[in-house]
């Protein structure tokens, strides 16, 4: 249908070219900017409709839009278009992770041992639960079970942050959900880099390559993160705090880091997250601490989650695969709830469990990590990482809803009881 429509348009255009010499050749593909604007509008419309109709979080709407327009349903976003959009999605994801990294407050961890215990428990239990499920129940080889665990063990800081921003949530559960998401991401990135070596070893590469690649990915991300954050602080230090100029400097340095990471084949998400963590920890003079990325990063988030929605492999879904993904998610959920229960502290158990529900999202970061591995080993990873992809697909739908449910139940969102015509 699409092709036949296109061929009519192409023929008509070619006919016109004879009469109108200035016309360019019929475009081989849609211009990236035009495509971006279409996706932006489509994502926005779907998200706003779902929000108005059922009160769903907007991020869920973006994913649904991507799924509907992607290869799984209408096919308007195909593999070529996805590849064309990848740099934009990389940048959007990187910027969101930069913000997530900036919220990893290591000083708070040191001040609150309960928080540290909760974070370490979440990391350890989530990894073990997912690894155990993938290895013992699904039967994946150890390296791929570890890869699946690395990809899916952490919460999705980008989703969590967007849900928090949208619901204007404030409070201890909100802070803990953000903190646990950031700590979990940091741990999953470390495990991911280590797993790259295991995967190399699994496919029979030399030990040199098995060690060199994780070092390249991890060390490269660290180096770029340090340099970009130092440069950002030095340049921003010449400008007034919280000024628009500082915002531009922060965004520009982040995009510089994205570009360099892409050029050197270093994972962008890891680089930007580390840049955020280093910025948060090393900015003692608070040069950039009060400067946030502009609301425009919400626009990039739309593109990101439409792309993520389109990239989800719904077409390949089978009932056994869906059951396995559900099993993995249940094991992961149990691990996170148990970790929060074990964290102890002054928060009552009910609130701790709400934090456990709030950190359930699993989305863009997992998909992008799976992409990174998939790029390296296209033949093997396709089937081996299906489990992680499907788990991410399910949680892309359920995660934002769970996160907002937890923040609502904790009484930390901005929804307030209307008091119209009350006491006088």
């Amino acid at each position, binding site marked *: 249908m699409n092709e036949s429509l296109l061929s009519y348009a192409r023929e008509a255009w070619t006919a016109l070219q004879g009469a109108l010499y200035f016309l360019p050749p019929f475009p081989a593909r849609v211009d990236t900017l035009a495509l971006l604007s279409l996706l932006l509008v489509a994502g926005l419309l779907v998200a706003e409709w779902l929000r108005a109709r059922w009160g769903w979080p907007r991020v869920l709407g973006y994913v649904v839009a991507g799924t509907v327009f992607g290869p799984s349903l209408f096919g308007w976003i195909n593999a070529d278009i996805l590849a064309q959009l990848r740099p934009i999605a990389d940048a959007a994801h990187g910027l969101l992770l930069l913000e997530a990294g900036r919220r990893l407050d290591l000083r708070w961890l040191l001040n609150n041992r309960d928080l540290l215990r909760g974070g370490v428990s979440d990391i350890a239990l989530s990894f073990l639960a997912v690894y155990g499920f993938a290895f013992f129940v699904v039967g994946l080889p150890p390296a791929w079970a570890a890869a699946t665990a690395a990809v899916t063990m952490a919460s999705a800081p980008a989703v969590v942050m967007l849900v928090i921003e949208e619901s204007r949530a404030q409070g201890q559960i909100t802070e803990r959900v953000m903190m646990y998401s950031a700590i979990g991401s940091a741990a999953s990135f470390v495990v991911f880099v280590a797993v790259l070596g295991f995967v190399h070893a699994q496919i029979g590469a030399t030990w040199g390559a098995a060690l060199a690649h994780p070092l390249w990915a991890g060390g490269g991300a660290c180096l770029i993160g340090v340099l970009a954050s130092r440069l950002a602080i030095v340049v921003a230090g010449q400008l007034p705090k919280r000024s628009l100029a500082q915002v531009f400097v922060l965004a520009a340095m982040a995009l510089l880091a994205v570009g360099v990471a892409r050029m050197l084949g270093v994972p962008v998400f890891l680089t930007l997250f580390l840049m955020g963590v280093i910025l948060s920890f090393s900015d003692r003079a608070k040069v950039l601490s009060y400067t946030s990325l502009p609301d425009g990063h919400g626009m990039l988030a739309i593109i990101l989650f439409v792309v993520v929605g389109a990239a989800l492999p719904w077409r390949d879904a089978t009932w056994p695969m869906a059951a396995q993904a559900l099993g993995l998610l249940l094991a992961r959920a149990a691990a996170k709830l148990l970790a929060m229960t074990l964290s102890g502290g002054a928060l009552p158990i009910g609130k701790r469990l709400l934090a456990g529900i709030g950190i359930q999202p699993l989305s863009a970061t997992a998909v992008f990590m799976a992409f990174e591995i998939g790029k390296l080993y296209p033949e093997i990873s396709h089937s081996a990482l299906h489990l992680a992809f499907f788990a991410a697909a399910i949680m892309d739908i359920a995660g934002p809803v769970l996160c907002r449910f937890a923040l609502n139940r904790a009484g930390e969102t901005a929804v307030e009881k209307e*008091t119209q015509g009350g006491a006088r």
Partner: protein
Amino acid sequence: MNDTLEYHQSEPLTLGVELELQLLTTRDYDLTRGATDLLRAVRHDGSHGDVKLEITESMIEINTLPRESADAIAADLDAMRGLLVEQCARNNIAVCGGGAHPFHSWPDRRISPGERYEMTYARYGYLAKQFTVFGQHIHVGCATADDAVWLTQALGPYVPYFIALSAASPYIDGVDTLFHSARLNAVSAFPLSGQCPELADWNGFLEYFGFLRDCGIAASIKDLYWDIRPKPEYGTVEIRVCDTPLDVVQAAALAALAQALSRRLLRERPAFDAGKALQVARYNKFQACRYGFDAQISSPRKRAQEGLRTTLKDLLDTLDDDARALGCRHWLDVLRTSLFTGLSGADWLRARQAVHKNLNDVVRDSAERFSAMRPPAN
């Protein structure tokens, strides 16, 4: 008669202090929601006072036990301050003094849970959220209800001094208001704010309050947002005009001033024209809020204006004997230092802003000042 209006006697000149404090996110030092979680987490034996919710979730109140001396008040305040700062650190929250947050957005404030707060929000709408301002309330014990009503009115002319000495709210909505204490403008919006009317004695007060209640204007003493009001359930007079100072030292010093001044007034029982005092009260209050120590105060007795700086110095001098008798003279020296150096809380905040050119850093400095402060040795 309403039960809450039964006057419970207390030891004369005993003191109690309530401090409303700001809860801040350490990310950018804006106000944050955190009071209910903090309250749940705070563990203490009550030997130095209590911690309470306030109208919005970004506020928390510490209060002392009733004490005979300003030294004991300072010890209570310091202990409660330490307790709160430690608990806040565990929740990644900073805490500071000051009468108003310099740049918070009032629509973002959340009303605290509780029937009284919900009723206040229902009745006053957005005013309740704009009431996210931070004051120090000083209670002075009175032996009898008649003494309390008399002292409530006798302290009225001294309101400008308390305002000038505590002023610490020069910024609102990110803007320098040119006021030293902009906090009281938020209080003025409430219909029952202002001054206690001219009353002969406790029966006069009961008659006046009964009238307000019958007209449906006030149901409880708490509905009267007067600058100074009798507090029959505690057996005290409550001075409510002070901004929360930037540290507990100044808070204890203000309590000492209230104690010494009340002692002198109750001892000498000077004659004063309450009606005339009321006619200039609002103007004098404005002057102190706007100009701090540089205010020009109208004297109804002299039918002229006097510089607040001069009359405050004279007042502190005349209180020497009473302060010595109460053992709080060293606390009045703290106020003298503030007066002679001309450095009020508002001036300090403006000085930090001149250095940083950024209100986030000003609030950060303010939080560090509040956290680090210890009362001076006697």
